[in-house]
């Protein structure tokens, strides 16, 4: 004891002596931009002596002479400087652009980025910041190589169709798996119909995003796992890629509050070029002149008519959006918290549509014992959608195009006006949008509770319980309508309540350790989840008035339907990694999954993956080249994943209730396929990561090939098998494992930092993705192709074995028949009169479309249909440039797509609905028809006792013979309206997607008012699009109307994405 005391005293003395010899060092720590680095740490090496830089990067420290100072700050490379005789040491910290050792979230754990062998892309908070995002999935567009994100609709709250590395499956769900803080997001891809909003049409593909309930401001990062070696740990759920989302967690320290506010204005900038009243009148009079319709005094003199109603202007509006979020975070060493609350309200650009969301989040982490950590993440959200039937042939958009310009919006009494032309009711599009109500309210509580135990060193056991409890209330209300020609004598109401409960339990043990140059980790785990759902739906008519929307007031016959069910999955998995000297890395994963979607014999399947990488820049022989190539890694991976997204019940044959006039009936809902099993996917990936010149230039390239086999889908059968037509009447074909698809691709990301100066920096990120797919086989079926449908059962796409998916299928237009001679000298039209008697109403006629005789058999018939274009792009790209000038930052994001075709279904329509059909005088037409084949008389002196020159086939010719638009004909004997190249347009585009200008207030000023940070920004979205497409927006994803899921790029009254201008404010104190 005495000895100890003595030693202590001596030591104290020694220190005191040393102190007298100490020196004071001052200086400025700055970075590449020339600004001082705030809060950088300056430590005397080997001691606890240290200081922190102030706002301008100044520091002051007293050290022993000859000491070594260690300068460090997060995000910068650490520097050490020996204190010699200098008393002022200014340090320039270099940005640690390599970021090689940041932790990256992978399935069931985190890894260092440098240890990754699979292909994945990260999106950080900064990437999401500033762009207006209602839904998370929207932010993926053009940002990550290999990820295509196309919004299915411009409606607020609608979803994007996301494809990771191309379309890997056609019928089962093709959207990636979303995992938020370890909890799998439920309900991917729901249609309004699923919620009971039958007023939204029969579309199958989601327009209602499951991610709409998540507040993007709570997100700290997103990790998109692309190749199978990365996704295989999700096994059966990983076939379409996995998006791992991490929310913000607190950091120890005093509470920090952040307010984020945003105000935005959106407007649909483009208009489809429909005829105005004067143009329509001219067209009408031309029809009269050819004896196609009777004269109408109203149109007689176009010069006295105005432009009439522009219905597009009437249904689109300038929409306001605003959002506010307040969050607080902080904590102690042991407990950290993050809490936030947000409110967002977004008007749609179509009158009457609206979306709003409240959300709250709490993330808590607590280190309860040295070996025991506990945490909870929970979020509650409430959303309300006011949805309009925008899409499809009965949607507001289509009606706004087809309704005649001679009808005013309101009549003289201020009521909506409508019209009926020959029985065809053009519902006033404004009334249509404003009268019917489709409300969807959703509530969702999701989150997880986890415990992390460290029983012995290097071994971590994490146990997690996840939950997702959600409910929705959907109300469809159709009021009484009494608008002249449009009457609805009784109102009706549908009310549906859905509820679902999901829970998951998972446990995984991870052991990791390092022995010399060898480090390895091993993880084994288990996961099980169950999802239960139920709905109750009531429908009734004849409420006493339209004021109170309560279905119990209805006096009609109520009909009630309900359903319930569940699905479950159980899994076991493992992952082993091995790292030798940071040069060679290997990963193996295996997952064994069981799903309740399949019958007893086919429930389980195992999925393996291997990956290896070689960081060749760490080899000794490479040392000399490191000043040029500072990091280089070659990655090779192979893996299996699966897909079970076919819904439950395909392995058995369920019965559906059908009411009939003879009483209730039960019909088999489908043909059972007891052998239905997993869809399997194998993917090989080779990647190369290169960083040049101190990571000023970073290049990542990946090539991949993935084969999806045993593809889950409904068998496509010819109509004589009874499988076509309305859903309730037809026999539903069996679902099974029928196809094999190959996707091959190349992804390149080039990330550069061309300028890093004191007052100016420039960062650029360019990514480009090429993907080719091919239908390899349709096993187990007699089919040689897949067919996809338009609105109902009209085939619009055919995929032959050996071809890429979704090719549009129809006739090729080569021109119009110029005259009688041309008809006689061309391949025989379908309605060529064998008896030589031509009739303009029943046979082919000059001015009809001349289709290509593809099979060269001399006649035009259904065998001449062929591939008329692919909706899939040859490549897509995105380019982000970020500039910083002092406190001002500017970010410009351009994206685009090349080589894809769009089927402009609005032009084609169905029956009387087409916008270029010229087969009635009830609907407005596109200005394109002004170039219609104009018939003129050849010999004006020929006299007729019966009929007129335009009924004499030998005496008419087309004046504008180069046109590709046919003559008007109400009977259309030549079927000019059928699907042909007439409706196929180039969908390539380059879009100035996003421009953000921000200003961050100087910290020096803010310090005085105790505010950490204030940033103001302005953002312009969808500013300009360069395209030849004639519709609203060339960005058309999966069809929202097709029930087969086998079409792509069909623009059927799609709600277009607007241009949005927003202003935001963010401050932290």
């Amino acid at each position: 004891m005495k000895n100890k005391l003595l030693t202590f005293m001596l030591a104290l003395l020694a220190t005191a002596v040393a102190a007298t010899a100490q020196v004071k060092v001052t200086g400025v720590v700055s970075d590449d931009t020339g600004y001082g680095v705030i809060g950088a740490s300056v430590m005397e090496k080997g001691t606890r002596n240290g200081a922190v830089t102030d706002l301008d990067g100044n520091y002051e420290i007293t050290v022993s002479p000859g000491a070594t100072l260690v300068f460090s700050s997060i995000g910068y490379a650490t520097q050490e400087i020996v204190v010699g005789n200098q008393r002022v040491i200014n340090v320039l910290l270099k940005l640690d652009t390599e970021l090689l050792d940041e932790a990256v979230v992978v399935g069931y754990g985190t890894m260092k980025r440098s240890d990754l062998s699979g292909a994945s892309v990260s999106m950080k908070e900064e990437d999401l910041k500033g762009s207006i995002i209602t839904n998370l999935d929207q932010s993926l567009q053009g940002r990550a190589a290999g990820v295509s994100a196309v919004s299915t609709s411009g409606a607020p709250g609608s979803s994007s169709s996301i494809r990771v590395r191309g379309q890997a499956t056609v019928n089962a769900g093709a959207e990636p798996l979303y995992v938020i803080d370890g909890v799998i997001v439920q309900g991917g891809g729901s249609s309004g119909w699923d919620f009971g909003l039958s007023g939204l049409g029969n579309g199958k593909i989601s327009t209602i995003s499951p991610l709409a309930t998540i507040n993007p401001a709570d997100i700290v990062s997103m990790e998109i796992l692309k190749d199978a070696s990365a996704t295989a740990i999700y096994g059966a759920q990983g076939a379409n890629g996995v998006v791992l989302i991490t929310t913000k967690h607190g950091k120890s320290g005093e509470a920090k509050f952040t307010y984020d506010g945003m105000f935005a204005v959106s407007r649909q900038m483009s208009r489809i070029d429909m005829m105005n009243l004067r143009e329509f009148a001219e067209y009408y009079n031309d029809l009269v002149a050819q004896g196609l319709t009777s004269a109408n005094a109203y149109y007689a003199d176009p010069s006295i008519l105005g432009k009439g109603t522009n219905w597009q202007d009437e249904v689109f509006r300038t929409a306001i959006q605003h959002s506010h979020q307040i969050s607080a975070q902080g904590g102690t060493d042991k407990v950290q918290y993050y809490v936030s609350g947000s409110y967002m309200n977004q008007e749609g650009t179509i009158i009457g549509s609206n979306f709003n969301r409240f959300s709250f989040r709490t993330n808590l982490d607590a280190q309860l014992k040295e070996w025991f950590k506990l945490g909870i993440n929970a979020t509650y959200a409430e959303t309300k959608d006011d949805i309009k039937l925008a899409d499809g042939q009965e949607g507001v958009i289509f009606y706004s195009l087809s309704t005649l310009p001679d009808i005013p919006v309101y009549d003289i009494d201020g009521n909506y006006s409508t019209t009926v032309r020959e029985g065809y009711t053009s519902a006033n599009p404004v009334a249509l949008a404003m009268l019917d109500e489709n409300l969807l309210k959703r509530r969702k509580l999701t989150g997880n509770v986890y415990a992390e135990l460290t029983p012995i060193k290097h071994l971590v056991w994490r146990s997690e319980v996840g939950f997702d409890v959600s409910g929705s209330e959907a109300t469809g209300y159709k009021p009484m309508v009494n608008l002249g020609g449009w009457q609805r004598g009784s109102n009706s109401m549908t009310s549906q309540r859905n509820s679902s409960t999901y829970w998951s339990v998972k446990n995984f043990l991870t052991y990791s350790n390092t022995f010399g140059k060898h480090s390895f980790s091993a993880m084994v785990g288990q996961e099980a989840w169950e999802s239960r759902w139920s709905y109750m739906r009531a429908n009734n008519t004849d409420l006493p008035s339209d004021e109170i929307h309560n279905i119990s007031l209805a006096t009609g016959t109520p009909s009630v339907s309900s359903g319930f069910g569940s699905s479950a999955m159980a899994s076991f998995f493992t992952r082993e990694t091995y790292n030798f000297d940071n040069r060679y890395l290997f990963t193996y994963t295996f997952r064994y999954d069981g799903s309740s979607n399949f019958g007893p014999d086919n429930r389980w399947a195992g999925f393996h993956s291997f990956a290896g990488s070689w960081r060749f820049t760490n080899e000794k022989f490479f040392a000399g080249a490191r000043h040029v190539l500072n990091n280089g890694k070659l990655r090779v991976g192979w893996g299996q994943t699966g897909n079970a997204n076919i819904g439950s019940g395909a392995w058995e044959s369920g019965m559906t209730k059908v009411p009939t006039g003879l009483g209730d009936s039960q019909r088999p809902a489908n043909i059972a396929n007891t052998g239905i099993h997993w869809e399997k996917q194998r993917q090989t990936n080779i990647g190369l990561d290169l960083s040049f010149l101190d990571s000023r230039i970073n290049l990542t390239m990946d090539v991949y090939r993935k084969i999806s086999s045993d593809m889950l889908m409904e068998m496509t059968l010819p109509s004589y098998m009874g499988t076509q037509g309305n859903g309730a009447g037809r026999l539903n074909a069996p679902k099974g494992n029928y196809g094999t698809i190959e996707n091959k691709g190349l992804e390149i990301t080039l990330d550069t930092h061309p300028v890093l100066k004191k007052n100016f920096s420039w960062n650029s990120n360019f990514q480009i993705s090429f993907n080719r797919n091919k239908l390899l086989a349709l096993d187990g079926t007699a089919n040689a192709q897949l067919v996809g449908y338009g609105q109902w059962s009209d085939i619009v796409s055919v995929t032959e074995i050996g071809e890429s998916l979704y090719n549009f299928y129809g006739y090729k237009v080569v021109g119009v028949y110029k005259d009688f001679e041309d008809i006689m000298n061309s391949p025989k039209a379908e309605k060529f009169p064998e008896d030589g008697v031509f009739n303009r109403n029943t046979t082919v006629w000059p001015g009809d479309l001349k289709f290509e005789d593809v099979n060269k058999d001399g006649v035009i018939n259904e065998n001449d249909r062929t591939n008329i274009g692919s909706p899939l792009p040859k490549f897509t790209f995105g380019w982000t440039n970020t500039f910083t000038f002092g406190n001002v930052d500017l970010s410009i994001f351009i994206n685009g797509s090349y080589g894809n075709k769009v089927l402009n279904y609005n032009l084609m329509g169905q029956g009387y609905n087409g916008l270029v059909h010229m087969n009635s005088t009830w609907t407005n037409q596109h200005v394109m028809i002004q170039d219609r084949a104009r018939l003129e008389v050849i010999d004006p002196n020929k006299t007729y006792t019966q009929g007129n020159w335009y009924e004499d086939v030998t005496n008419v010719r087309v004046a504008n013979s180069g046109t590709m638009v046919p003559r008007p004909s109400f009977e259309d004997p030549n079927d000019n309206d059928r699907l042909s190249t007439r409706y196929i347009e180039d969908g390539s585009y380059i879009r100035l997607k996003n421009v953000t200008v921000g200003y961050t207030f100087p910290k020096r000023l803010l310090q005085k008012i105790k505010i950490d940070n204030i940033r103001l920004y302005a953002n312009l979205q969808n500013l300009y699009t360069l395209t030849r497409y004639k519709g609203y927006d060339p960005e058309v994803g999966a069809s929202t109307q097709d029930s087969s899921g086998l079409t792509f790029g069909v623009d059927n009254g799609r709600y277009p994405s607007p241009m949005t201008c927003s202003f935001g404010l963010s401050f932290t104190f």
Partner: protein
Amino acid sequence: MKRILTIIALAFVVVLGTTSCEDFLNRPAEDSYTTAQFYLNDTQLEQGVNYLYNVAWYDNIRFFIYGSEKMCGNVWQDRDAYMTLTVNGTDGDLKNMAYSYWAENAQCNTVIHNILASTGDVSPEVRNRCIGEALAWKAMTYFFLVRTFGDVPIIHDNTEVIKEASYNEVYKVEKADVYEYAIMTLEKAMELLPKNPYIGKLNRIDYYAAEALMAKIYLTKAGVTGSLSQEDLNKAKQYALDVIQNSGRTLTPKYSDIFRMTAAQYQQTGECLFTWHWQAADKNAWTTQNSIQCDVGMNGFSEEGDLWGGWKGPSVDLQDLFGVSALDDPTTRVNTDDRRQATMMMFGDQYDYFWTDCGGFDFYRFLYDDNYYPGGLSGNASSKEFTSLSGAVYCKHLFGDKADHVAAFGYPSGYMYNGLPTHILRLADIYLVYAEACMLTGDASGALEYVNKVRERAHAAPLTSVTVQEIWKERRRELALEGDNWYDLVRRSYYDVDGCIADLKAQRRSGWDGLDKVYKNFVMDNGSYVGPGAHSWDVSEVTYRGNQELSDVKASMFIMPFPTEDVVMNPNVGSTSAPIHVDVRETYSYDF
């Protein structure tokens, strides 16, 4: 130590929780039957076939109610490919019609398959009856198919075809063989169906309904080779006579009652043999309902507003056949036949069974009186214009307004839902089938007797002599707008296509110009409704257009183009591919 123990305890819980994986994953449907759980008792068997009477037929109704009616000259519409007999294989109504037939065939095959597989405690009578009903519907489906498209594929058992994966290799079968297949199917149905209409089941198909169809099939098939087969005609006669004499069914006394909503009216005497039984109680079950009124009724005819049919109507030619004209002064118009007013509405017509809440329907006031409307509305929703240029509008297939529907069923119509049944084979048709078969086999007196029975019910003057042309005319008068008259032409075109072409060319298929002005003038004065006689009847300015008469009819037009979409998958069904001959009795059988 404590730490380790806690962890072991937790691990134990976790392991226990995951032991029974198979139970956890076994989740058959909980909220509905599966086929294995159904068809287990008599009630379920009957429920299992009920839907063959409605859903699958829905897609066919537009072709049924105006596609084929326009072609045969019963209905007028301006500018329409059905009017010119030039419908293309991509036409929407045409495709839906084909989908409907094929769906019904597939559903019949599936039901039969499922009932045969039933292991439940079911009585043989009910089992046989239900299979019999499905077979009868199947025969009806093929009867529609072969008359519409001529040569068509035969899908005998969908499940088998799917199992064998032979669905893309099927061929069109020659129409004579398809007739034989329908007959063979019906023979089996007749073997299984009960003879006497069982109590309360009059709305279902029984032996005599199947036999009636058999008679009609034989009559149609008789000419398929190009000349009339006396043997087939004799069979038609024999089957028809058996139905007429032994079924216990007679004609409904009042013609218009056949087209009313309740069985108490339309089925008083069992006249209706094959009927689509729609429902309207559940407005959430699309395609289970009748929505024909929407397609054929005039705007404003019901307060539901779901009507748009006023721009087409029964043709001038059909009016000629009934001896009436749109130019007749309605106050003095003479109806020689009850069927005229029950088939079509003409200016001035009054109906006691429509708009019962308004004391009956007055066509004058409906058209032009602002203060005339059924309950609930604030104004007359008609277009205030007589819009059907043929001078008539549909009456058959109309049920009336909401109050009429409530009176019949106890609940309202609306949203394109009504419960009016649609009859597709009636006893009167069989009387005329018998008459035609008699006539074609030289028995003019037998023919006259039954033509006159049909006329007698309609209060039309009896004929003193009859020709086969007169029987065809009678068929149009009796069955107009019931989706059948086009097939009279098809039947005849087998052996007398030139006659059919000549008849079609002779039809008056165009509309009138100027009717609305005359009608309005007759009941209105100074812009307000006064009633008939407001001004004198003056049709001097009305002109017949004459622009839709058929000048170009070809033999090929009596066969509709087979929808072209399936050619993508199976080139054997293309428009130019040849049918094959199949010995159907060798190839297919119903051995149960």
